């Protein structure tokens, strides 16, 4: 392997070939223009080389038709690039509905992954081949970026908000995971591997763990942090009932409504006064610093589990 000179990265996701086809188109167009310009310059430089010190070429001031031609044709081509690129981008940005979720927390300098079933990994991600996977990511400190070249996709992992990224692996194997956003001293050591496995092996790997599911972890935290004291899980508490909350439209005190997705729930935990639910008082303290980013993710999973008929399915966006 080491002595080989790779010129092209392996294609291991459904979008990889779309990105590569787009690249071939761009390469073809740009090579055509580069060669055209290089050959013209070389030809002119030789054909019209200075033959005597006194020669004075006829001045040519320009030609409107040529200017129009070499503005309009490249513009048309760039618009094809734009639209093609945008369509691939939509594909890369929009996870399919059946995507299985994995939570990712980046911190200086490691990746922490949590599967819905409770499995945790550091700097490794095991996923089954042929199954779309959606990552919901955040950072504990600075901006990182989750990059898997074989899948041709990356996304910044930003503190204070959730970003997402998805891929559907097509090939069993072991692929590089890189942090692509500079994050300090050991940036180049914030790397790992994505293991794409046969579904059966993946199931075996999953059952190898002993930890409870994420929702179970969240349940425990919900009691440990005394959330249960105010959020009674019925309509009797001082605070809103969380049953059936996930995915619903929540009326707010200022008259607007907001959809209860991951981002909203995270915000309600770390900054509760930002969006106060209509009919309730702004009495909840902030839990910023009292609960880790992973804990927040477990709480989100727990709250999701309180909404029936949506067992571990992603919220439609």
């Amino acid at each position, binding site marked *: 392997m080491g002595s080989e000179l790779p010129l092209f990265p392996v294609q291991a996701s459904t979008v990889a070939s779309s990105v590569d086809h787009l690249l071939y188109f761009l390469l073809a*167009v*740009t090579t055509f223009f580069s060669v055209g310009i290089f050959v013209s*310059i070389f030809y002119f430089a030789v054909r019209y080389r200075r033959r005597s010190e006194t020669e004075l070429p006829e001045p*040519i001031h*320009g030609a409107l038709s040529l200017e129009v031609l070499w*503005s309009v044709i490249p513009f048309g081509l760039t618009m094809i690039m734009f639209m093609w690129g945008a369509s*691939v981008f939509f594909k890369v940005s929009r996870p399919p509905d059946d995507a299985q979720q994995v939570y990712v927390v980046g911190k200086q300098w490691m990746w922490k992954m949590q599967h819905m079933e409770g499995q945790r990994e550091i700097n490794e991600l095991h996923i089954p081949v042929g199954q779309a996977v959606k990552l919901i990511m955040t950072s504990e400190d600075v901006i990182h970026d989750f990059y898997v070249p074989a899948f041709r996709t990356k996304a910044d992992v930003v503190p204070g908000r959730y970003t997402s990224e998805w891929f559907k692996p097509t090939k069993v194997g072991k692929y590089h995971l890189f942090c692509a956003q500079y994050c300090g001293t050991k940036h180049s050591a914030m790397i790992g591997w994505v293991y794409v496995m046969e579904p059966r092996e993946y199931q075996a790997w999953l059952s190898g763990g002993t930890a409870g599911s994420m929702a179970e972890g969240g349940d425990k935290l919900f009691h440990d942090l005394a959330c249960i004291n105010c959020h009674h899980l019925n309509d009797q508490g001082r605070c809103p009932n969380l049953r059936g909350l996930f995915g619903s439209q929540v009326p707010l005190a200022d008259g607007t409504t907001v959809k209860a997705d991951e981002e909203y729930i995270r915000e309600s935990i770390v900054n509760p006064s930002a969006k106060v639910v209509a009919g309730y008082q702004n009495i909840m303290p902030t839990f910023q610093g009292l609960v880790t980013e992973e804990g927040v993710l477990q709480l989100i999973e727990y709250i999701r589990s309180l909404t029936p008929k949506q067992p571990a399915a992603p919220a439609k966006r």
Partner: protein
Amino acid sequence: MVTEAVLERENYLNASYGIKSWLLTKDHKRIALLYLATITFFFFLGGIFATLIRLELLTPAGDLVSSDTYNRLFTLHGVIMVFLFLIPSIPATLGNFFLPMMIGAKDLAFPRINLLSWYLLVIGGCFTMYAMLAGGVDTGWTFYTPYSTTYSNSYVIVTGLGIFVAGFSSILTGLNFIVTVHRMRAPGMTWFRLPLFVWSNYATSLIQVLGTPVLAVTLVLVICERALHIGVFDPARGGDPVLFQHLFWFYSHPAVYIMVLPGMGVISELVSTFSRKAVFGYKFVAFSSVAIAVLGFLVWGHHLFVSSQSVYAGLVFSFLSYFVAIPSAIKVFNWTATLYKGSISYDTPMLYAFGFIGLFTIGGLTGLFVACLGVDVHVHDTYFVIAHFHYIMVGGTLMAYLGGMHYWWPKISGRMYPEGFAKLSALTVYLGFNLTFFPQFILGYLGMPRRYHAYPDEFQVLHVMSTAGASVLAVGYLMPLIYFVWSLRYGAIAGPNPWGATGLEWQTSSPPPAHNFEETPTVTVEAYDYAALEAAKVG
């Protein structure tokens, strides 16, 4: 020696003597030389950092320097090359020297402000030098938050202040150029008789004046958050880290055009002079500079395609980014067309111009890849981007700068450089550059992220090629330094117009007198009118 001094005409170099006559000069030509010395120093300093980076990357393991040192090397390489070399490079040296001469003026509009702007660059440089000697800075030249404001243990504030101060140097130079072009043109020098170098520097000045204050504000906010813990960018303090990226790139994308537009102006001069033809499509080339300056302000979001910016913002910025491609393409096509039926000589400046057009074409066309959303998601923050912008900044701007230095050196110094060595240096730079940076496109598409101190083994072959190229490139850059100095004493006397060029700067003696022209020139012909030049010689 005595006879030579007597025979020598009075010029800006021998009009007065002593260190004070330089440090307190108001002559734009002397200030240009002060800038030249300063940025040459910074170029080689930044080059030393680049050399150490390339040596570290020779092997996959991070073994030559520590991670922290490596991070400081690439940060200082970027900060010094961008803010202390590339941005001042062509405008502050060649522009300072020749913009007034090209329009037939005695000096810039504000000679004292011109000197002040040099001092500001030096002060800004001193701050950066201090940060470097005290322990360096490790945020990358992009200063992304919250790393720079909260997590970095390095001299962010001092470096930020240095860039802040140097920014005012840039603003003042831009202001000076704008007023000079508006107010100081010689009789008959209408806007459409201006040499294209003046047009491109004018467009550059607009960006400097309008864009740089935004960078200044952004740096002040970073310094406030870091020193006073005001929450602007750090989410732990209620800030938004992506806001920083919007503010930073609102300046720093247009800054790319601050760096490359003056180079394009140099190339227009070179292509015309060494093919003895008026630049094809003068007005299109002139207005394309202005178009680049304007459109350059509308595309910053293409640096944020993977930042969590909305999908629709990504679409808009990708769309607008393609608009900038057109004026750049217009320039390349018009330069090529200028050669048609010309009288082309292969003097060193023209070799650099050919090099520029080739490398800028590759740099510009790979810009289409990174503007393309679907491809950018893969190549963003990889070596593909490194290669792309080095093709523009080094393959473009630096080739133009060196081409311009060779072209105008006889005017600046009154002496010719050694042509053989100079041609060899042009060739060395061209080959070394391509060997250094072309492999990085492949590295990037393979997935090699930027700013990596250590990397997986399979990338090594391409890194070794790149390091080999960098050593060739270093030789190519050292050669001019040596023979330019040599030529000051031993070069052949140049005479007023060794290239048979049309610009007003060539219609006066070399080196020019302190007030540029014996009498204020009157302009009666268009730019690049070689027939009129020939007629004047005969008449």
